[in-house]
């Protein structure tokens, strides 16, 4: 189920890349793809009926979902935001240099 959701979201992200001409939209598509992949990874480790992998008073017995994908996703999310920040700063500079964020206009200006 969630698999399909994440696949469709990846698809939407790719679609965004393919159809949009604004560089901001590209970053947004990238974020969508990242989120979709994160969802996919978490869903790979989900076991229905079991608990979140934290020992506590309420869950004394180790009936946990797979914790490893969660750990990986934690890493992936942070890496994602790092890249996003970098992309945004590049974007600001692109705008300063070319005065536009439209791909075609940038190409036209670079050709000059």
């Amino acid at each position: 189920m969630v698999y399909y959701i994440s696949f469709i979201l990846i698809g939407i992200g790719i679609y965004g890349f393919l159809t949009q001409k604004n560089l901001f939209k590209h970053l947004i598509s990238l974020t969508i793809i990242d989120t979709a992949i994160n969802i996919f990874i978490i869903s790979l480790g989900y076991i229905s009926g079991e608990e979140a992998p934290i020992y506590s008073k309420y869950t004394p017995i180790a009936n946990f979902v797979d914790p490893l994908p969660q750990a990986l996703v934690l890493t992936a999310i942070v890496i994602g935001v790092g890249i996003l920040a970098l992309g945004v700063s590049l974007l600001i500079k692109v705008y300063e240099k070319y005065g536009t964020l439209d791909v075609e206009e940038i190409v036209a200006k670079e050709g000059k």
Partner: protein
Amino acid sequence: MIPISYLVLVFLFGSVVSYLITKANRIVGAIFNFLLTFYALFVLWNLEIGHTEKLFSILEGVENTFKVSSLGKYFSIISLIVISLVSFFIIEWIRKKPSRPAAFNAFVLIMSAGIIGVFFSNDLLTLYIFWEIAVLGSFLIVPMGKEDSKKAAVIYVVTSAIGSYMYLFATFSIYNKYGILEFDQVSRFLLNEPSNLFKWFIILFIASAGIAKSGIFPLHTWLRITHGNAPDAFSAILSGQLVKMGSYVLAISLSVFPSTKLLASFYSGVPLLNYILIWLGNISIIIGTFMAIRQNDMKQLIAYSSVANGGYILVGLGVMNSIGYAGGLFHVFNHAIAAAMIFLSFAAVVYRTGTTKIDEMGGLIWKMPWTFVTYLVGIISLAGIPPTSGFISKWMIFNALLTKGMFVTLTITFIGSVGSFLYVFRPLAGVFLGQLKKKHYEVKEVSPVMLIPMLVLTLLTLFIGVYPKPVLDFIVSIENSLGIKPIEYSGTIIKTSLGQWDTLTVFTMFAVGFIIALVLYIIFPRGKKVELTDQYTGGEYLFNYDLYHYATGFYRFLERLYDKHPSFEKLYGMLVSFFKSMGEIINELFYKVSPSGYVFWISIVILILFWVRW
């Protein structure tokens, strides 16, 4: 005896020394070069046939060696004669000409090292290595010439690389199949090879290096631009020597790998492969001759004649009977000497006048008589007129073709001979005869340093023309070593199945004729000398002298017959621009796109992989 590897090393290190010396003083550097090359000539002359040296081993199971064969010795001596004489010429020439004299001298030595290595290599890989060294050295000199020479150098290397990479491919096929690369062993293995296709492929691919280098038909276009634009004195080496490296590889691919024994006879004892090569030679003769007639630049003209003469050599070698093969080898010598003479005399003319366009000159015979004599003898030899050595080789080739019954080829070679009279006459008339231009009134004959090598070459070609025994001795030993029936000759008389030729008699007859003509010329009154402008203008004002120069459109009546000829240069130009525009399209599609494009290609790749896997 001095080992060859030592000689090669001396040349390689000598290049550094020469660079440093030339930095200090150009002339001393050039003298150093001359001494080194002359010394090499001396060493090579004294080499014993069969002498072997181990060098190194790059591929497993293949010991790279030098071995002195008669064929290699013959070629190397011709080359070193040309190189050392041109080096002598350069002693004076270098004062004015190349933009980077130090580099020029150093590269000449590197190239010579490569050349020596090529001729004494005993296996395919060693030959390739030294071949590329020679190409490297010569390629670096070419762009020191005229404006177009930068483009010319690239064309030169690329053409050479096309040939040499085909050669390399064949080399590795052999290595992969037999595990050896020595010439003797390769030919032994080839004799036992059942697959005809493989033999064809090997011989053709190895020959292609020679085809590229000696400017045979499909790869002939580089000669015009390279010889035409290289530094003037270096053109003499290019045409007189480097092109002969190609002939050497052709000789190896046809005779060291005994093509007549390897492949079934196709037409009067000549295999189909050789026949194809002969036809390539024929086409080269036609193209070279007819294109040479059209040229207005004297260096480009002789460059085209090199194409034609490369064709002659290939035809001679391709026939592969005793007289044809000997004729081909003899023509190597003749063309080397003649081309060197002609290019040196041109270099002398350019040294004094500063132009290579025929219609900008005229009447230089009065100012530069010795240069004129060199040129005259050179073109006589090139055109194959009897008292010079040039005639002997052409006569031998005609003879071979006649005995084999190849009448079409014979006709073409005759046409080529007649054509060569036409094209060599054009610079003769345009540059040396006719009226002297005003701006050339102050031109002087070049200095003795330049004249000596030119006259030595002149004497050499006349001498061999009268007394060809030294060259024929070589050729006989080559033919013996390759298992071809040697030609018969005694003294000055060459014998074939169709008759014989006595060079001495012919020389005597021509000498007598020449003396008679000279006497008549002196006795009878001469024509009146007039200004260039006088004879054409009848009251109208002259705007453009060139139009009235008789060398403008010299052979217009002939050229008109094939004005719309198919041009291979244009064809290759189209090919190059096709590649370039392919690259442009690829660039636009894959490398210059926006992020959308990148994602598109990622998706496409995934889809392709997906499609392939499932």
